[in-house]
């Protein structure tokens, strides 16, 4: 009697274990499948983990965040003298540019009046600050404190004072994730500032530069050309500064972005007017 009970208990626990293993296997399979197809459940899962788990992890590592910030401040303080010298030189250079810019601005105003054209093609949705970074090892993403409640939706352009930063993905109520330009899966339609070359760029293997994936008419731009968004993919508004061409090979070219991705504090989420 006791032996048969034991055998039954063991077989029941084995059945339960096998059942549990099958469930885990099936769940993993569906999660992987839906992850590729961008299914609603996966997005919900991502937003839950971003909303609830992320604050806990950030709270846990808060002392280290403070230490990291202190180290940055220490380096900045150490380089204060050199930086001051560089800034003085830059002020002198900018003063010359300012005179030229004022002159051009006046000329532009007159020309715009003549052509009856609008001022800008951008509308500011929200200025947000960086909450945390996820650009370690694989993807290049950051989290910002603007979400659906601020009018931010997926695939909006994100800029800072230097140029294009990336686009919003995984938008939640309070925050959003921004896919940086340097991510290998981000694709940006660009053109040279002279309107001669149109290409598609994505993040290069080094995680710092951008590399061309497609060049219209197989034409390659010149070294040192400036690259701006072309606006042709309808994701990014046109004429936003992206970077400068730093290397041209036989089939592709490399662009160094103007944005310093290691020093992002505030960004602006914008959309086309």
């Amino acid at each position, binding site marked *: 009697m006791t032996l048969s009970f034991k055998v039954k208990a063991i077989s029941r626990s084995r059945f339960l274990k096998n059942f549990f293993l099958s469930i885990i296997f099936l769940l993993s399979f569906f999660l992987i499948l839906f992850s590729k197809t961008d299914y609603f459940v996966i997005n919900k899962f991502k937003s839950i983990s971003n909303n609830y788990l992320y604050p806990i992890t950030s709270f*846990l590592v808060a002392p*280290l965040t403070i230490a*990291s910030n202190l180290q*940055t401040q220490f380096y900045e303080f150490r380089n204060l003298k050199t930086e001051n010298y560089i800034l003085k030189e830059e002020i002198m250079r900018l003063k010359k540019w300012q005179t030229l810019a004022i002159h051009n601005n006046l000329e532009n105003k007159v020309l715009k009046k003549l052509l009856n054209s609008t001022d800008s093609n951008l509308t500011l949705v929200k200025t947000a600050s960086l909450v945390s970074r996820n650009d370690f090892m694989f*993807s290049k993403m950051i989290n910002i404190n603007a979400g659906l409640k601020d009018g931010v939706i997926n695939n909006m352009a994100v800029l800072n004072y230097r140029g294009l930063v990336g686009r919003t993905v995984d938008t939640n109520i309070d925050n959003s994730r921004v896919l940086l330009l340097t991510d290998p899966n981000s694709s940006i339609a660009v053109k040279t500032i002279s309107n001669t070359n149109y290409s598609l760029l994505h993040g290069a*293997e080094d995680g710092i530069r951008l590399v061309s994936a497609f060049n219209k008419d197989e034409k390659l731009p010149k070294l040192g050309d400036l690259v701006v968004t072309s606006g042709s993919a309808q994701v990014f508004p046109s004429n936003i500064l992206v970077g400068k061409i730093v290397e041209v090979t036989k089939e592709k070219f490399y662009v160094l972005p103007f944005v310093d991705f290691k020093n992002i504090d505030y960004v602006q989420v914008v959309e086309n007017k």
Partner: protein
Amino acid sequence: MFRKLLSSQTIIYHLLLFFSFSLSVNYFVDLEFVNFLSYVFFHLTLIYLVFYFFQFSLIFVSFLYGIFFDIFLIDFISPHLVSFLVFVFLFYYTKKYLLNFSSIRISYIIIGVTLIMFISEALIANIFFNYPINYQNLGWLFLTLIIIFFPSLFIFSKIDKL
């Protein structure tokens, strides 16, 4: 009750797992070595926990950590989930033979498994999600693993004696 809970080694290992997970998913630009250290330490702790404190619930724990690592670091679910689950399943079906090995041989196995996990994660991310294999990062991971392996084992042995 709390004393009993805190003296339990498994709880300490799970706390270590969660702390190293938290450090791994929050990138510190100026303290990048901390991210590498915690990422390697997480893998080591998980493997050690599976080897010496295997419970059936660890499969579910690996499943959850795999998903969260993938969501935070890659934004697509696969590389960590697959490598964690494959390792736990393999251990589950071969534990009869593995646990007969000496502790030194198990140490070598832990190093080998960790290296294979890093490579498989990078390979899966490359094949399915187009993330290029960053050999420099892999090199840093291997170096960190070699540096922290014995100190980690020392910490684990201290925890085991609690």
